Every structure is written in structure tokens, then in C-alpha cells.
């Protein structure tokens, strides 16, 4: 198996400069030294697991650029770029797009007026794309993505503003397994997850607030901010090794391990990774669609 490729951005310009979720409080800023220390510890764990960390140049004025998970989503050689809900994050998009063009991806954007925040809100588990909506991404954009990729996409409404991205309350471990916090979903969402994920590991409310669902999965290792003995047992019983590493400085901005990483080669839980490279579905004939930065056809 090829080494996992993970895009990360050093927290050189990270800080709490605005408030766009309930975790953020501009009067409680992140400590730069501790942020850097925590971030480097995460990098070290991932590198130890054999991952290649690809670094994105930090940019002044874009404190949340560290949360690379929100760049977009990858599917084979297509990078679907995010359209951020809040203006303060929109400056990140050109930097991410350029990076993925350089990496040889075809980069596309959603139509104007849609909101979509990448792997923060769209996670493959098996062949299905589970897609969070309400606070950041909208349901219409998730349906658009399902059609563009030609994959089954199940929009799940997020009902608790603390869990404003799907990756704060749901984490696929493999194509059949996931951890999730039920309180972040309504009855419909819980029913969909129960019906469509073979093995669901429940995270309790006190674990969810310490971002136990915001985990990075590399092979059979789950890396997260903090883990309760109960959840650790559950994960180990399912064959996973758990690595906890403090990320408290990033929780001040409403992010943790998963938010700080972007799996360039696709998450392990995504079935499409196991398939031979296949042709993408033809591009939609939607004139609104922006096809930015496409590399020249060879």
C-alpha cells in the first residue's frame, strides 16, 4: 500500500481572530508556542505511521488555513474545491486550488451561491458519501456533488451548532465502521446512519465535546485529541490502536486532529480508493459550473 499523503499547514498565523462557531472566542486566543508544539506532535505521530506530510505555506490573515480538511474533497483525480460560508475563510480557496492544480488534480468549483466546506462536511464511508448540512454546507450543494461524482450522497442535517461540521460528530474508520455522536443528528440522520453503516460506535456527549469524533484514521490507527477509557476499549475491541495527542489550542477554534489534515490520496474508508482508476463521470453541462485551473488536456 502506498504511503498516505496528508496535507497540513503549520500554525504560524493561527489564532482566534473572529467568531464563526460557538467554540471561538476572540478574547480567548490560542497560545502560538503551544499551538505549534501540539501541531508538531500530531505531525510526528502521522509520520511515524508512515504518512507523508505535504506542507501548505501558511498565510498571514488566514488563521484557519491550518484546518486543511476544509479545502475541498478529492475523488480519484478530481478536487472539488470548497465554497466557504463565511467571507473570512474564502481567502483560503485560491491557495488550496493552486496547490491541487500543482499536484496534478483537476480542480472544479461548485456553482456560485452554493456553500460547501469540503472534507469537513463530506466523508466517504464505503461507496456512500455522507454529507453534513445546515451550518456550513447546504443540502443543495451536497446533492450537486452527488450528481457530479455519480456517487450516492446522503445529506445528514446537523442540529447542534457545536458540531457544525460533519467531521466533528462522525468519523468513518473503514468502509463498514464509523464512530459518531448521536446528539449531533436528528432522528432522520440517526436512522440513516444506523441503516447504512454496518458497525457504528457511539461517542458520548462528554467525549464529543473533547472532539473524539474529529479523528485521523491511518490504517488501523485512530489519532485524536483525547480518548475516554470506554471509547478506547470500544475502538480496540474493533481492532484499532488509539493514539491521543493534546490539541486543546485548536479546539479553541472548533477544530482538532481531523480538521488539521487533508488526505490527498483519499481516506482509507472510501471504497473508490480500492477500485482501479476509472473514468470520472462526464462533466455536467451546467454553464454555472466553474472549471478553474484545469490542467491542459494532454
Amino acid at each position: 500500500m502506498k504511503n498516505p499523503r496528508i496535507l497540513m499547514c503549520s500554525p504560524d498565523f493561527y489564532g482566534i481572530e473572529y467568531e464563526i462557531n460557538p467554540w471561538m472566542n476572540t478574547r480567548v486566543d490560542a497560545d502560538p508556542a503551544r499551538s505549534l508544539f501540539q501541531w508538531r506532535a500530531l505531525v510526528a505521530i502521522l509520520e511515524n505511521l508512515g504518512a507523508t506530510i505535504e506542507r501548505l505555506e501558511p498565510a498571514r490573515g488566514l488563521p484557519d488555513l491550518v484546518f486543511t480538511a476544509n479545502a475541498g474533497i478529492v475523488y480519484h483525480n478530481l478536487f472539488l474545491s470548497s465554497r466557504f460560508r463565511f467571507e473570512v475563510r474564502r481567502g483560503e480557496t485560491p491557495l488550496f486550488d493552486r496547490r491541487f492544480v500543482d499536484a496534478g488534480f483537476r480542480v472544479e468549483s461548485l456553482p456560485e451561491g452554493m456553500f460547501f466546506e469540503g472534507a469537513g462536511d463530506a466523508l466517504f464511508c464505503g461507496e456512500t458519501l455522507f454529507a453534513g448540512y445546515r451550518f456550513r454546507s447546504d443540502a443543495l450543494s451536497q446533492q450537486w456533488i452527488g450528481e457530479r461524482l455519480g456517487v450516492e450522497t446522503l445529506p445528514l442535517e446537523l442540529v447542534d451548532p457545536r458540531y457544525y461540521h460533519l467531521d466533528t460528530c462522525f468519523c468513518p474508520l473503514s468502509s463498514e465502521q464509523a464512530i459518531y455522536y448521536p446528539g449531533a443528528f436528528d432522528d432522520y440522520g440517526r436512522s440513516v446512519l444506523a441503516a447504512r453503516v454496518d458497525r457504528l460506535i457511539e461517542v458520548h456527549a462528554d467525549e464529543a465535546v473533547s472532539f473524539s469524533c474529529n479523528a485521523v484514521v491511518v490504517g488501523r490507527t485512530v489519532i485524536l485529541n483525547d480518548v475516554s477509557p470506554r471509547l478506547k476499549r470500544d475502538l480496540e475491541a474493533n481492532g484499532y490502536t488509539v493514539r491521543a495527542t493534546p490539541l486543546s489550542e485548536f479546539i479553541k477554534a472548533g477544530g482538532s486532529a481531523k480538521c488539521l489534515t487533508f488526505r490527498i490520496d483519499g481516506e482509507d474508508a472510501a471504497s473508490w480508493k480500492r477500485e482501479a482508476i476509472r473514468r470520472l463521470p462526464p462533466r455536467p453541462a451546467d454553464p454555472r459550473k466553474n472549471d478553474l485551473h484545469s490542467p491542459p488536456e494532454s
Partner: protein
Amino acid sequence: MTPQEDVAETDERADSQEFVEEIEVHGHIVDSLILPKILDRILQMGGSFEIRKCEIGARRVDPSHARIAIRARDADLLAAILGDLVEHGATQVDVEDAKTVAADIAGAFPDQFYSTTNQQTQVRIAGRWIDVDDQEMDCGIAIDRSGRRARCVAMADVPLGLPIVVGHAGVRVIPTERSRDGDVFGFMGSAVSSEKPKAVSVRAVADSIRSTRAAGKKVLLVGGPAIIHTGSAGHVAALVRNGFIQKLFAGNALATHDIEQALMGTSLGVSISKGEAIEHGHQHHLRAINTIRRLGGIRAAVDKGVLTSGIMYECIKADVEFILAGSIRDDGPLPEVIVDTLRAQSLMRSAIKDVGLAIMVATALHSIAAGNLLPARVKVVCVDINPATVTKLLDRGSFQTVGLVTDAEPFLRGLAAELVGDIKT
């Protein structure tokens, strides 16, 4: 559709959900439970829905598609529901304003005019759906200068420059809702049948008359001369006298033979009491017409004490509006008979505005003429010995009609007995 599906009480309509918009929802809406969630949300918020179209994807990766009409009791609630559903990925179906073209010739519509039905219709003007007033089939829709009102207008009544709706964009028809209770329209399983227990049907019509009156609406009788020939004039006169009929549409013949009977005791020369032809009786109706013409009209004959009984007499006494529309074969005619067809049509059009129930007895042509003017919400009972009369009404779009195939006399006798009690004829 069968008639009983289309007939709603007038008072039911008042509290029905009048504001409607359509949404579309697309994607993996079944497995994600988005579709059931949207339908649940509509109901929870106090609206109702109708799934207009639903295509389920064949394979798991195939998207499904649903088109849903949402109804709400007022515009604010509808807007709130739409706002909520947008959050779940629903999109409002693209709707355009109605297009209008100013009438370039008086008395004719512009080409491509929208031809109306008798069903409640709305047009979209400046982004808002407004009800079309004076709903009538086979008309055009005129928009007033303010752009806030729309109404049906007959071809002949179009003045030069009147903005007329063209095409189908921005026009929608709101189907009449089903009747909830078991009135005559629910009871009558088929539109026209000779195989119904007549007493039950007559009782049901009597109930409809009572409920129409209770709702503050008027009852219209459209009648042919067979009412007189069959000896039913007394029954109708009793119904008029006792306030169960507020309007009468007929022709020269009904009025003539009614007056002939009142003055001479015959109808078309046949004695109503004995059933025998009277010598020189064939002249009786001409003599009756002549008498009335000499007096200056039916009202004058009543005022002068010459006409003292019958349907027309009771109409004058009870101040029941009657419109007698003439035809080419009329004798006389009586002075009140309107010989200008378009004028008669126009007067009938004004007269039906507050009608809630129309009872059409033993006349094909007047029934069709009245049926053409009535909006679908007005219930119609058609009584004729010939089933073809009812069929003709239905064929011309008056599908809110139920028919009773029976002779006029037993029906009217039964109806009068139900409503008025024992009566002398």
C-alpha cells in the same frame, strides 16, 4: 374525474388551503430520508402537500426526483414553509409571471389567449399569485391596470387595449377539492343514472338546497316548459313562494305556458287537471302571450291583477330574479324575453355570481347555457327524462353535475314535499 370528486362545499373552500407553491427535490432523497423529512416538515408546520411527480432512481447511485405542491392557509405560512424546505435542499419550481397582450381588436382576444376552464384559476403577476374573479369556462383572463386583479372576460366583452393573458406561463388551475360529507354529490355514485332510489336522491337535493341557503348562497332553477306540461308549475310556485329558489333562468316557453295555465288552465292546449286536449286549445298560449303583450308585460299583468298564480306570478311577488332568454322559434315573445342573445348571456353572467346550487330541470339548451357560465365550485343537479341532457352538460365541461334521470313532475313534487310539506297544486 367523477363528479363527486370535484364538488366542494362553498364553506369548505373558505377554510381550505388556498396558497400553493411547487418545489422540487432531487438527489438521494429516499435513502437519506430527505423526502420523508420534507413531507413531515410541511405537515408539522401546518401546511399540506401533494406529490405531483416522484421518480425513484433505479440503482443506489441513481438520484431520485420529486415535485411537490405545498398548500398553506396564507402567504406568510407558505413562505415560512418554503424557507424551511430550502434548507433541506428543496428548490422552488421556476415560475414565471403571466404574459399579457393588449387586445388589438374590440370583441376579440389576442391570438394565443389563455382559454379558461370553470375551475378556480390563479395568475401570477409581479411574483404573486392572485385569484381570477368571475371564473367561467371558455373566456379569457383580463388583468386590470393596477396589476392586482384578474377576472374572466367573455370574448364579446373585450374592449380595445384590455390586457389579456396569453399562453400558459404564470397561470394555474386549482382543482376543486373533494366533498367531505355525504351530500347528494357524494351519494350519487355515477354522474347520470336512472337506477337510483329517487326518494333518497330528492331528499339529498333538498338537503343541498338547505345547506346552500344556510351558507348565504342562492339557488338557481333553470327550467324548460315540460315543468308546466307535466303539471309541476304548482310545485315550483310553492318552492319560489317559500324562499327555496332565488333565481330563474328559462325561455319564452316556460313563462308562456305557465301564464297559459294560470289564465286558462291548459298547457299547450291540454287541460292540466283533466289531461285532455281542449278544443281550440292550441291557440291558448298565443292568447296568453297576446294578453301579456297588451298589458305591457308579466309584471304589469301581475300589478293589474290579471295574472294571479303560477311560477311567474310567484317570482314577481317574491322578487325572484328571472331571466328569460329568447330563441328563434319563439312565439310572441313575452315582453320580458330578452331577444339579444349576448345581452341575455351577459345578464345571466351577472346573475350567477352569488349562486351556490343550480337545479336544471327538463331543458337541454338553457342548462348548457347556464352550465357554461358557472364556475366549477357551483354544484349542479340536472333532472331530465333523457340521460343525454346530463351527458351533454358533462361533455361541455360542467363536470360538477350530477344527474337524475326522471320525469320532472315526480322530482319537483318530491322536492316540494320535502321542503314545503303538503302542498296544493
